[in-house]
C-alpha cells in the first residue's frame, strides 16, 4: 500500500500582535487574570490588506521553498478556513494561481471550523493513496473572528500552515501512517450565513465538544494501531487556548514534555484551521528521524481528525531555514493598541 507523507511545510504568521491585557482593559476586565486563565499572552492579527487568502499563499510559498519541488506538479489544492474572503469563490484557486500550480489540478475550499485544514490533508492523502495524484497541497488558514467583548476576542489569532503531501516515499520527510476521524453533530460553535462573528456555547464547548472529540479520536486511532501514549514522542492536539491541550494530553496519559513543544497558541492566539497544523510544524522543526507524532485536530460542529506520523531520515537533509522555524519567525513582530487592532480587523463600522 502507498503511504502518503509530508514533503514540505510552511507557516505564515502576520506581523502585528496585540497583548491580551490590552484587549481586556478596553472591556473593563482584569487582563493578567484573563491571560493566565486562558494560557494565551498575545495574539497575531493580520493587517488591513491581509486575509486568509494572503496568509494561505504565503504559507504555500514557504512550503514549496522548503521542499524544493515544482508547484506545477501539484494536482490538488485544498484550503480550510472559516474566514474566507469570499462567501462564494474559492480561496484555493487564488492560492493555486499564485503558486503557479494552475490549471491542471482540482481545487476546493473546505469548511469544518478549526479542522478544515486537516480535512484537506486527508483528502490529499486519499488521492495520493489511490494513486490519482503524486502531489497535493493542504492549507489551514484563518484570520480568526471574535466579537468585540466576547471571550473569543481574547484568543482569536491569525496565521496559516501549508503541507505538501506526496505519494512518493523518497520525497517524504515524514510518513502519515494512519488517519482516523471522530465526528458527531455537536453545535458548540457556529456562524450563521451573513453573520459577521461566530457564536459559541460557552462552557458547552469544553467537555461535550473539545475534550470528548479529541480524546475519543486519540483513543480510537491508538486502539486501531495498537499504540499507547508512550509510543509517541510528541502529541499535537488542537489548541483553542493554552490550557485545553495540556488538559486533554493529561487526560489521555501523555506527559507535558510530549505536548508542550507543540503549544503555539499562547504566542499567536488560536489560529482556528491552522492551529493544529502550526503546532505540528513546531514539532517538525525539531523532530528527529524515527520519532512518532500523534496529531488530533478539532473542529467545532464537531469532529477531530487524528494522524499518526513517523519522521523519516530525509528530514535531516531537508530542514527549513532556521528563520522559518516557528519559534524564530514569531519574533518578527510589532505590538499594536486596541484602536489599531480595531482598524485593521475592520471592527469600526463606519469604515
Amino acid at each position: 500500500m502507498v503511504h502518503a507523507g509530508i514533503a514540505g511545510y510552511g507557516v505564515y504568521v502576520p506581523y502585528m500582535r496585540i497583548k491580551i491585557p490590552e484587549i481586556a482593559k478596553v472591556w473593563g476586565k482584569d487582563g493578567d487574570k484573563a491571560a493566565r486563565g486562558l494560557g494565551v499572552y498575545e495574539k497575531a492579527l493580520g493587517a488591513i490588506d491581509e486575509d486568509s487568502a494572503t496568509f494561505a499563499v504565503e504559507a504555500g510559498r514557504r512550503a514549496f521553498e522548503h521542499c524544493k519541488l515544482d508547484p506545477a506538479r501539484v494536482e490538488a489544492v485544498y484550503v480550510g478556513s472559516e474566514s474566507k474572503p469570499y462567501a462564494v469563490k474559492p480561496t484555493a484557486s487564488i492560492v493555486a494561481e499564485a503558486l503557479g500550480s494552475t490549471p491542471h489540478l482540482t481545487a476546493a475550499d473546505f469548511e469544518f471550523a478549526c479542522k478544515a485544514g486537516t480535512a484537506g490533508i486527508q483528502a490529499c492523502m486519499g488521492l495520493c493513496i489511490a494513486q490519482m495524484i503524486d502531489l497535493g497541497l493542504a492549507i489551514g488558514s484563518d484570520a480568526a473572528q471574535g466579537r468585540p467583548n466576547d471571550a473569543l476576542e481574547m484568543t482569536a489569532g491569525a496565521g496559516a500552515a501549508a503541507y505538501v503531501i506526496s505519494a512518493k516515499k523518497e520525497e517524504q520527510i515524514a510518513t502519515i501512517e494512519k488517519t482516523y476521524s471522530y465526528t458527531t453533530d455537536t453545535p458548540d460553535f457556529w456562524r450563521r450565513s451573513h453573520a459577521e462573528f461566530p457564536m459559541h456555547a460557552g462552557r458547552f464547548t469544553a467537555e461535550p465538544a473539545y475534550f470528548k472529540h479529541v480524546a475519543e479520536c486519540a483513543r480510537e486511532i491508538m486502539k486501531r494501531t495498537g499504540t499507547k501514549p508512550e509510543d509517541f514522542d510528541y502529541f499535537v492536539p488542537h489548541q483553542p487556548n493554552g490550557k485545553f491541550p495540556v488538559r486533554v494530553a493529561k487526560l489521555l496519559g501523555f506527559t507535558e514534555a510530549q505536548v508542550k513543544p507543540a503549544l503555539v497558541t499562547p504566542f499567536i492566539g488560536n489560529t482556528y484551521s491552522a492551529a493544529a497544523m502550526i503546532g505540528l510544524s513546531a514539532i517538525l522543526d525539531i523532530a528527529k528521524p524515527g520519532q512518532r507524532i500523534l496529531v488530533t485536530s478539532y473542529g467545532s460542529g464537531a469532529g477531530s481528525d487524528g494522524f499518526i506520523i513517523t519522521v523519516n531520515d530525509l528530514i535531516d537533509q531537508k530542514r527549513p531555514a532556521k528563520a522559518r522555524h516557528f519559534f524564530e519567525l514569531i519574533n518578527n513582530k510589532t505590538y499594536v493598541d486596541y484602536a489599531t487592532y480595531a482598524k485593521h480587523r475592520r471592527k469600526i463600522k463606519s469604515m
Partner: protein
Amino acid sequence: MKHPLPLIWRMIPEKYYLMGSHCATCKNDFFPFRQICPNCRRLGKVSEKRMPTTGTVYSFTEVSAPPSGFEFEVPYPLAIIELDNKVKILAQIIDAPMEKIRIGSRVQMRFRRVGDDDEESAISYGYKFALIEDAASSAKTDKPAKTPKPTVSKG
C-alpha cells in the same frame, strides 16, 4: 481607485507572480510585460518571463496623501525596488516602520490585497514587498522561478 474586473483578471500573472518579459535579441528583461521590445522593436524576440521576487530598495518615500482605496494604510512606505535582474518596479513596503527602511535594504515579494473597492466587488490581490530580515528569510537572493507552462500535462 476602482478596479474593473477585466483588468483585475488580465493582470493576475503580473500581480501574483511578477510575470514580465524577456527579449532574446537584446537579453533584457522588462516589467510589466511588453509585447514589443523597446530596444529592438521589430527585431526583438519577446517571451514571458517571471521576474525574481527579491531585490533592493533603490529609493523610497512616505505616502501620507494616498490615492483612494489606501486611506486606511497611511502613512505607508512606497519604494522603487531594483529586482535582482536590475528591473525596477514601484511597490509598497509592508510590515516595517519607516526608520528601518534604507536605500539598499534587501526586500522580498509578498502577496497582499491591493484593491478592495467595496464589500460586493471582486478583491484585487497583488505584490507588495517586505524587508528580508523582516520576511524571516535566510535567502539572500532568489533566482527567477521557472515560468509555468500551463499547456504541459502533468500526467
